[in-house]
C-alpha cells in the first residue's frame, strides 16, 4: 500500500492549516457564504438537509486497518457512530458540525487520509478496480497509475475551478468492475507488444444526461500519461460550457464538438505540452509502484484451494452450499491471482439495512480481520460494499464466523439484495424521493420469498433524483425517484450495465408510487424467470427479448 513520505504529509498538513484559516475567515465574516462554499466543498464539506456531511477520500478504494480504525473513531467522536460508504469508494459522515470539520481533517491527516477535492468543480478522488492487485485477470496493478494521478490532481493550480466536477477511473483488466466508461475520464491500462500504456475514454457520465465515454486514444505511452491527462483537462477547462450548470460536464463538450474534434484539440494540446515538459520524472512511477508489490503470499502447498474446501464440505454432512457459510463462499468470494487465496466481499447490504452503512464497531471488526487475514488491507467497492482483498481459502471459515457474528455476512453479492442506493430524501437536499426505504423493502421482499437465489445476478440501482448518484442508468433494473405534483413517484428502467458490456437503461413507461414500484420490480423478475434460457442473467434475457414483454406485463397490452 502507498505510504506518505514527508512531502505527501506536508501537503495534507498544509491543507488542514489552509482550511482552518478559511473557516476562521468565514466566521470572522471575511468570506461570504458564496465565497466559502466552493472552499468547503473542496474539503468535502456539504450542507445537507439536517446537518453538514463530510466526505472523506479513500484513494482508489484502498485503506489499511489503522485507517479503518481512524474512520471508526471519527464516526464515534464526531458523528452518530456510523459512516456511509459511497459509489465513489469514499466514506461520508452525515451528521457533522462545521466547528469540528478542521479537527476531523487533522485526525485524518494523522492517518495519511484527507477529504481533499471530494467535492467541488475540481478533479475528484481517483477510483479504481476494487480487486486491483488481487484479480487474476489484470494486466498490471492499476493503483500506481491512480496514485500518480492523485498526486498530479491534488491542488492542481490550473484545474481548481473547472466548469464542473471531474471524475477519473483507472482499471487494468478487460473486465470493468468500476464503471470506467461512465466517468469523465476512464483509463484502462493495457499492454501492447510488452509496452504498458493507457487507453483514454473521455466524456462518460451519469446524471441527467447519461453518456458512455468514447475511446479517444487507444494507447498513451505510460511515461506520457500525465501529459495526456493535462491536455484533456486543459481543453475542457477552456471550452467546457459554463453558461449552464447542467451542460457543463465534459460529456456535453465531447458530445457537442464530436469525439473526433475533441480528440483533435486534445492531440494538439498534447503535442504542445510534450514540448513544455509537464510529465513527472520516470522514476516517480517506479517509486510508487514499489508500494504496491505483492504481499508475501504463502506457498500454495501451505494453503488450501477451492477444491479442498469442497472436499471438506463433502466430508461434513452438515455442510451446505445453499446456506450460511457455503452460500457466502459461493457468492461473496472472487478469484485471486495467487493460488490458495481469494478476495472476500463483505456485503454492506444486510436484508432490510441501509446500503453502504457500517457502524464504528463493524469498521473495527473489519480492521481486525484485515490485520489478521488480509495483509492489513481493505477495499471499498463502488457497489457500496467492502472487501478483504487477499485471504487464504483456509481462513474463510474463521473469517465468515467473525463476519456473521457482526452482521456482515450477508451472502448477496451481485444479487437483487445488493442494491446501490443514494442517500435520497432521508439526507440529501437535492433529492426528490427517498431511496433507502425502497431498497430496504425490495431486499426484504426478495429475501422473504426466497427469490434472490432463483433470480441470480441482478443489479438494481436506485437514485432519489435525476443527478443519478445511485447509478440507476447503469442498473439491470434502475429506479429513479421524481417528484410528481408533490408526491414521490418512481420511474422504472431496464437494461443498463456499468460493466464491460456497458449500456444505458431505458425507461419502461409511466412511473409508480412506492408500493407500485416494489410490485413492478417483482413483475419484471417474473417476466425474466418465465423467459430466461439456460444460464442467462437478467440482463442477457432482457437484451434478447427486448422491452416489450416487460412493458406488457407492467402496463397491460
Amino acid at each position, binding site marked *: 500500500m502507498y505510504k506518505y*513520505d514527508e*512531502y*505527501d504529509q*506536508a*501537503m495534507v498538513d*498544509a491543507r488542514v492549516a*489552509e482550511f482552518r*484559516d*478559511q473557516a476562521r*475567515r468565514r466566521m470572522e465574516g*471575511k*468570506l461570504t457564504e458564496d*465565497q466559502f462554499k*466552493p*472552499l468547503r466543498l473542496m474539503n468535502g464539506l456539504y450542507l445537507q438537509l439536517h446537518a453538514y456531511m463530510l466526505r472523506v477520500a479513500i484513494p482508489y478504494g484502498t485503506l489499511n486497518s489503522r485507517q479503518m480504525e481512524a474512520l471508526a473513531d471519527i464516526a464515534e467522536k464526531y458523528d452518530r457512530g456510523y459512516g456511509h460508504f459511497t459509489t465513489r469508494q469514499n466514506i461520508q459522515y452525515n451528521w457533522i458540525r462545521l466547528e469540528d470539520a478542521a479537527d476531523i481533517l487533522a485526525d485524518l491527516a494523522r492517518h495519511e487520509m484527507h477529504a481533499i477535492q471530494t467535492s467541488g*468543480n475540481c478533479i475528484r478522488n481517483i477510483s479504481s478496480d476494487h480487486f486491483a492487485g488481487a484479480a487474476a485477470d489484470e494486466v498490471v496493478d492499476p493503483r500506481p497509475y491512480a496514485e500518480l494521478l492523485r*498526486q*498530479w490532481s*491534488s*491542488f*492542481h*493550480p*490550473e*484545474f*481548481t*475551478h*473547472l*466548469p464542473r466536477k471531474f471524475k477519473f477511473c483507472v482499471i487494468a483488466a478487460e473486465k470493468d468492475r468500476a464503471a470506467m466508461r461512465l466517468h469523465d475520464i476512464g483509463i484502462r491500462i493495457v499492454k501492447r507488444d510488452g509496452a504498458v500504456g493507457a487507453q483514454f475514454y473521455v466524456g462518460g457520465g451519469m446524471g441527467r444526461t447519461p453518456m458512455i465515454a468514447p475511446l479517444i486514444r487507444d494507447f498513451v505511452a505510460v511515461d506520457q500519461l500525465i501529459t495526456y491527462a493535462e491536455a484533456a483537462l*486543459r481543453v475542457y*477547462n*477552456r471550452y467546457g460550457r*459554463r453558461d449552464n450548470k447542467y451542460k457543463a460536464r465534459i460529456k456535453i463538450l465531447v458530445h457537442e464538438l464530436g469525439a473526433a474534434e475533441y480528440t483533435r484539440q486534445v492531440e494538439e494540446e498534447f503535442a*504542445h505540452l510534450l514540448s*513544455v*515538459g*509537464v*510529465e*513527472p*520524472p520516470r*522514476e*516517480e512511477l517506479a*517509486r510508487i509502484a514499489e508500494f504496491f508489490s505483492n504481499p508475501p503470499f504463502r506457498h500454495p502447498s501451505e494453503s488450501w484451494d477451492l477444491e479442498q474446501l469442497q472436499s471438506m464440505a463433502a466430508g461434513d454432512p452438515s455442510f451446505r452450499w445453499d446456506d450460511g457459510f457455503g452460500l457466502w463462499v459461493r457468492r461473496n468470494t472472487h478469484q485471486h491471482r495467487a493460488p490458495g487465496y481469494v478476495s472476500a466481499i463483505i456485503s454492506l447490504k444486510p436484508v432490510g439495512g441501509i446500503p453502504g452503512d457500517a457502524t464504528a464497531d463493524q469498521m473495527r471488526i473489519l480492521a481486525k480481520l484485515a490485520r489478521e487475514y488480509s495483509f492489513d488491507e481493505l477495499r471499498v467497492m463502488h457497489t457500496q460494499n467492502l472487501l478483504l482483498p487477499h485471504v487464504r481459502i483456509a481462513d474463510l471459515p474463521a473469517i465468515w464466523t467473525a463476519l456473521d457474528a457482526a452482521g456482515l455476512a450477508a451472502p448477496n453479492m451481485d444479487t437483487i439484495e445488493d442494491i446501490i442506493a443514494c442517500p435520497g430524501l432521508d439526507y440529501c437536499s437535492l433529492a426528490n424521493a427517498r431511496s433507502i426505504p425502497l431498497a430496504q423493502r425490495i431486499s426484504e421482499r426478495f429475501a422473504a420469498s426466497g427469490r434472490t437465489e432463483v433470480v441470480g445476478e441482478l443489479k438494481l440501482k436506485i437514485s432519489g433524483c435525476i443527478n443519478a448518484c445511485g447509478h440507476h442508468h447503469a442498473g439491470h433494473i434502475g429506479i429513479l425517484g421524481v417528484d410528481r405534483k408533490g408526491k414521490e413517484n418512481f420511474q422504472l428502467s431496464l437494461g443498463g450495465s456499468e460493466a464491460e458490456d456497458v449500456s444505458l437503461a431505458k425507461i419502461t413507461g409511466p412511473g409508480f408510487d412506492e408500493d407500485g414500484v416494489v410490485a413492478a420490480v417483482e413483475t419484471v423478475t417474473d417476466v425474466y424467470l418465465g423467459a430466461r434460457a439456460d444460464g442467462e442473467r437478467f440482463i442477457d434475457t432482457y437484451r434478447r427479448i427486448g422491452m416489450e414483454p416487460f412493458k406488457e406485463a407492467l402496463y397491460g397490452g
Partner: protein
Amino acid sequence: MADNLGTSPDEVQFRFRDDEPVDHGTVTVDSALEQTNANAVRIEPGDDARLLLAFLDRLALVEVNFPSFTDGRGYSAARILREAGYTGELRAVGEVLIDQLSHMRRCGFDSFAPDKRLDEEDAARAFATWESVYQRAADTQMPGRRTIADKRHGA
C-alpha cells in the same frame, strides 16, 4: 486606441516584479490584433490567449479578468502565455480572492489587482500556502522551484 480598459498601477495590490509597470490601460484582444503598437492587453474569460502568441514580444502587460472567481479559464490563459515564453507582467484582475492567490501565482500571474482590496496578512499566508508542489506549472519553469517528484529523484 478605441478602448482603454483595465486597471491602473495604483489598483495593483501585489506585484512580484521590479520593472516599471505600464502606465496606461489595456485593449481588448480583438483590438490588439488590429493595433500593431498595443503593448497592454486584457483577456476576458472567453478569449483565446493563443491569439496573442504571434506578438508576445511586444507585450509588456497582459491582464486576465476574472469576472467571477469560479470561472477558471484565466488559469489556462496564464499558463499558455508563460509556456510560450511570455515574460511581461501577467496581472489577475476582477474577483481575485485570498484562496485563489496561491494557484494564480503557480499559473504565472505576477501581479494582482483585486476588485476589493485583500487583507495583507491573509494574503501573505495564502501566497505561502505550498512549500512544495506536486505538478509542473509556470512556477516550476522558473529556476529554484522544483516539484515534489523532482526533489524525490534529485532532478
